[in-house]
């Protein structure tokens, strides 16, 4: 069974229609926990993109060899292997960013989004399609994290990527750890509202 979508459609699908954070509501832990700045979101996004693309390709290559009964443990171990790789690479080359990310890099293993994409997509499709789907999902996650980080950094600290933009701190509340919940909830509601308006405008 091959997908009828082009590569570009697969990527766009991951970023917009099936955005992991705002539409599928998966992988919420990092979205709430460490989305305080754009940079954090970008770094974790890169790590997730890497793991997603490589695990998708690995599973797509070996999909005929994997017995359906043991597929979930196989996915988990594949992801765990790639996470170990990115964990060690980041610890060696970017120790500062790694320290900021804390335990979340290791916990990419348990992110529902990656397992779900393997189960829904990579185990049925070709390697190329899986690759582009992985890129789309990874980018979707990255953009979601960066959007959250942007809103929280801008409203909380008045900065973007560490540069002072506003010159004052509008709502310090947003930089506090628990504000992640509020921020995700408000942004999700906002996107729902935009979508409803868009649909109504289209119908009229």
């Amino acid at each position, binding site marked *: 069974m091959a997908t009828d979508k082009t590569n570009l459609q697969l990527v766009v699908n991951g970023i917009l229609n099936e955005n992991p954070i705002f539409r599928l509501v998966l992988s919420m832990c990092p979205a709430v926990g460490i989305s305080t700045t754009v940079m954090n979101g970008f770094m974790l996004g890169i790590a997730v993109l890497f793991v997603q693309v490589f695990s998708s390709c690995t599973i797509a290559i070996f999909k005929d060899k994997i017995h359906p009964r043991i597929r979930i443990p196989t996915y988990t171990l594949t992801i*765990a292997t790639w996470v170990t790789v990115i964990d060690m690479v980041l610890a060696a080359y970017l120790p500062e960013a790694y320290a900021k990310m804390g335990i979340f890099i290791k916990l990419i293993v348990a992110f*529902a989004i990656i397992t779900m994409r393997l189960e829904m997509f990579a185990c049925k499709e070709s390697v190329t399609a899986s690759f582009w789907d992985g890129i789309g999902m990874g980018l979707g996650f990255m953009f979601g994290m960066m959007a959250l980080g942007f809103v929280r950094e801008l409203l909380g600290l008045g900065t973007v990527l560490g540069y002072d933009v506003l010159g004052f701190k509008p709502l310090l509340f947003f930089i506090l*750890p*628990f504000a992640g919940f509020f921020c995700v909830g408000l942004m*999700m509601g906002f996107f729902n509202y935009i979508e409803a308006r868009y649909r109504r405008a289209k119908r009229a």
Partner: protein
Amino acid sequence: MKTTLMTRRVFLAALLCLLVPALAWAGNLVSGQRFGANNEIVVTFSEPLAPAVAGEAANYSVHEEADPDIRLAVSEVVLSEDGRTATLKFPAPLNTVKTHVVSMAGAGAAESFRVSKSYFGYLLGILISALLINNFVFTKYLGLCVFFGTSKRKDTAKGMGITFTIVMVASAIMSWFFYQFILKPFGLNFLQIVIFIGLVSLTVQAVDTVLRKVNPALFNAFGVYLVLVIANCVILAVPLILADNEYNFFETVMLALGAGGGFLLALYLMSSVRERMELANVPRAFKGVPIAFIVAGQFALAFLGFSGLSLF
């Protein structure tokens, strides 16, 4: 009538037993000592002392029992008005897990005593900390996918929480054994993630098989979420934390119980609110998940109130 009398006698006897150590202490100058805030030691004396003796920081010398060479400087001593309670203040927070030795000079004779928390209290402290202060859902932001997925109804929340706690404890104990006896001796620390997640999948598979036979109704209610226990960050975070902190067996069990119990508590609280919210008039754009996030944020705010809590 007779039984009540018996109960009263037993109660009195127990009370006496409790009082005996206090009587035995009375001969000494120092009648009680404990940790105050995290940078304080509170000493109680059996008789009033002059401020020149007990209120002088230079008269005290404090060190951890394990390394007597490292003296901890006392920055200030506050003596209560009746001269019976002195609060020793330190510039840096003390490691209250360790036993501290305090020596006092100038009070007629030199006095030395040890200040420690009981180990049982320390274990309970780990439990309470994982349960409330560092609740994995509301203050560490882990396990949120499953948290939002299964907190729609109370029954599911309870079942999920209990299953999760069982899986958590079982897999944490196994992880501890693997970490202490295989990964550490053979220098295989880099395999942590792979081994831990493998053990978790194994436990989940076992619980899956058992539950399918024992309680099919509960099994049906979970549907996909039992599989999602693997995809729950908490279940992997606990083994990683216990490996990082070099916890021993009892500490591991306490941490796992606290994590599971905390998750159960969070799920139950959330499901109670969400059941009521079904009836509330929520703006259409916020219906379902977005409002749930905002409620969770309010819970997180409330749990922030536990942050200073220290019972033992």
